[in-house]
C-alpha cells in the first residue's frame, strides 16, 4: 500500500500532537545544553501549521502539504530549528513534486531530501549531536527497509525506530554544532533536543502510515 496527501496532512497533525505532548520535555532538554526554548519554538510552529492546514485545498498533493508545513515552520518557529525544519520540509516537498501516491522509494527520497536539506543549511555532520543524528540513521534504515521490499508503513516504522535510537545515541556525545557546542565537554550526558523532536516527528510519520494502512485494510 502507498500513501497519499491524507497521510501527509495526518503526519502534520500527529506531529503537532506529539510536539504539544512533549513540549515541556523538549524545552527541558534544551535548558540543559541550550537556552530552553526548543519545545516552545516547535510547538508554536506546529500549531501554526495545524491552523494553516485548514486552508489547504482538497485536491492538494503531498508536495503541497509539505510545502505548507515548510513555509509555516519557517515563518513561525525561529531559532535554529525553524530554518532547519523548514528547509527539511521544503526539500521534502521538492522530492514529492508531481506525485499523488507515494511508494516506499518515494518515501525514502523524501526523507533523504529532508535530511540533505538540514545538512545543507546547518552544515552538521553525523555525530555532532544535532538533529542530523536522528535523521541520518532514519534515512539509512528507511533505505534498507525499502531495498528489502518493505511497504511504506514498514519503511517509516524502520525510520522512526532508527531515529529514536539515534536520538538516544546523542546522549554521550560532545556537541559541535548549535548552541550546545558552547558547553564543550559539558554537553556530554544530555540528549540533543532537536534529535529528540526529530524522532517524535518521524514517529508521527510512521503512525500516520500505519493508520492509513489500517483504514485501507478494513
Amino acid at each position: 500500500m502507498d500513501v497519499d496527501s491524507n497521510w501527509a496532512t495526518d503526519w502534520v497533525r500527529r506531529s503537532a500532537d506529539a510536539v504539544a505532548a512533549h513540549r515541556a520535555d523538549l524545552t527541558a532538554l534544551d535548558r540543559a545544553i541550550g537556552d530552553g526554548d526548543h519545545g516552545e519554538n516547535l510547538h508554536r510552529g506546529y500549531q501554526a501549521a495545524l491552523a494553516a492546514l485548514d486552508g489547504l485545498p482538497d485536491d492538494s498533493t503531498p508536495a503541497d502539504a509539505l510545502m505548507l508545513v515548510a513555509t509555516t515552520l519557517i515563518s513561525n518557529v525561529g531559532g535554529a530549528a525553524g530554518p532547519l525544519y523548514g528547509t527539511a520540509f521544503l526539500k521534502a516537498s521538492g522530492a514529492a513534486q508531481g506525485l499523488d501516491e507515494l511508494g516506499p522509494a518515494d518515501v525514502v527520497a523524501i526523507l533523504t531530501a529532508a535530511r540533505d536539506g538540514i545538512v545543507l543549511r546547518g552544515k552538521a555532520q553525523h555525530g555532532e549531536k544535532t538533529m542530523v543524528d536522528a535523521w541520518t540513521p532514519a534515512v539509512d534504515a528507511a533505505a534498507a527497509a525499502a531495498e528489502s521490499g518493505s511497504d511504506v508503513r514498514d519503511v517509516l516504522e524502520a525510520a522512526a525506530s532508527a531515529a529514536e535510537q539515534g536520538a538516544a545515541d546523542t546522549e554521550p556525545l560532545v556537541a559541535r554544532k548549535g548552541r550546545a557546542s558552547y558547553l564543550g565537554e559539558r554537553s556530554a550526558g544530555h540528549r540533543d533536543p532537536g534529535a529528540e523532536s526529530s524522532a517524535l516527528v518521524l514517529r508521527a510519520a510512521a503512525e500516520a502510515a500505519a493508520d492509513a494502512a489500517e483504514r485501507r485494510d478494513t
Partner: protein
Amino acid sequence: MKKLINAPEDVVAESMAGFAAAHADLVRVVPEPLYVVRRDAPVAGKVGLVSGGGSGHEPLHAGYVGFGMLDAAVPGAVFTSPTPDRILAATQAVDGGAGVLHIVKNYTGDVLNFETAADLAAANGIEVRSVVTDDDVAVKDSLYTAGRRGTGGTVLVERIAGAAAERGDDLAQVAAIAEGVNADARSMGVALTPCIVPHSGEPSFTLAEDEMEFGIGIHGEPGRETLPLEPADRVVDRLLDAILPDLPYERGDRVLLMANGMGGTPLSELYIVYRRAAERLAEEGIEVARSLVGDQITALEMQGCALTLLRLDDERIELWDAPVQTASLRWGR
C-alpha cells in the same frame, strides 16, 4: 517564577507596544510581522542598518533604533531568533536605495534566519550585506563549535557602523567599518544567578550560593565552567585574563571599555567592576579612551556582568562621539 508580565506568549508583543508608546518620537513599531523602525525610515540615500535576534536582551536591539544607530530592529520570541519574514519586512522598510546592512549575532538560529531573509531581500532587488558578530572569547575553538557568539561587541558595531551610515558612507564602507569593529572587539561574561525564560518557568541553570558561572553567553546557557564566587576585583581580572591576550590588546592601545550588566545586577556593582577593569588596563599600559557602563545586552533578570574591549583609532572615536538619538544611547542631539 516572578515576573511583571501577563501571559508568557504576550511578553514580546506587549513589551514592544509599551516601547512604541514610550518612544513615539523616535520609532514606529509594526506589529505584524513584528519589527521596529526609526520614525523617519526609510532615509533616502542612506545605508539602512537592521539588526535583531531573540528578545530578552533589552535594550538590545530596539533600544538602539534611531538617528546614528539602527534603522530597524527585529525582535524574536524570548531567546529565539526572529523568522525571515519579519527580517525581510524590516529590510524593505529601511531600504532608502543605498542598500541594507544586516548585523547578525553569531548564533546558528540568527545566522540561518538572517541568511534566508537576505536571500529573499536580494530576490526583491535590495542589496544586502551581512556582518556576523562573534566577539565572545568564552567560546574557545571554533573548529569544534558553532563559533564564537556575538555579545557586547554587537552594540559597538551598531553604534559605529550607524554613525558611518549617518555620515553618508556607502554600503561597502559601512560593512567594512562594521567588520573592523567586530574584528577588534572581545567580550567575556560571568553570571551569579540564572535567568528564567517566561514560557519555561524554570531557571536556566543552577548555582550554589558560593558559585558563579564563568564564560556565559546571553541566553541563560550554562557557561564555560562553574567556579567558586570571588571578590569583584578577582572576577574582573579573570575576565580580562581571557580577553586581553586574545586579540591581543597591547601596551599603547587605545580602547573603549564597556562594563555591561546582565539585567539583574545593580548599577553600583557595575561601577565597582568598571573601576577594577580601568585600573587593570592602566597597569597594562592600555588607555581607556571611551567607556560605557550599564545594561546594554542582557539576559532577562540574570545577575552578572560582561566586559567588552574595543580597540579604537581616531576614526572610530569620531564615529563613536557623533550624535546618536535612540531610546537607550543618546548624545549630541
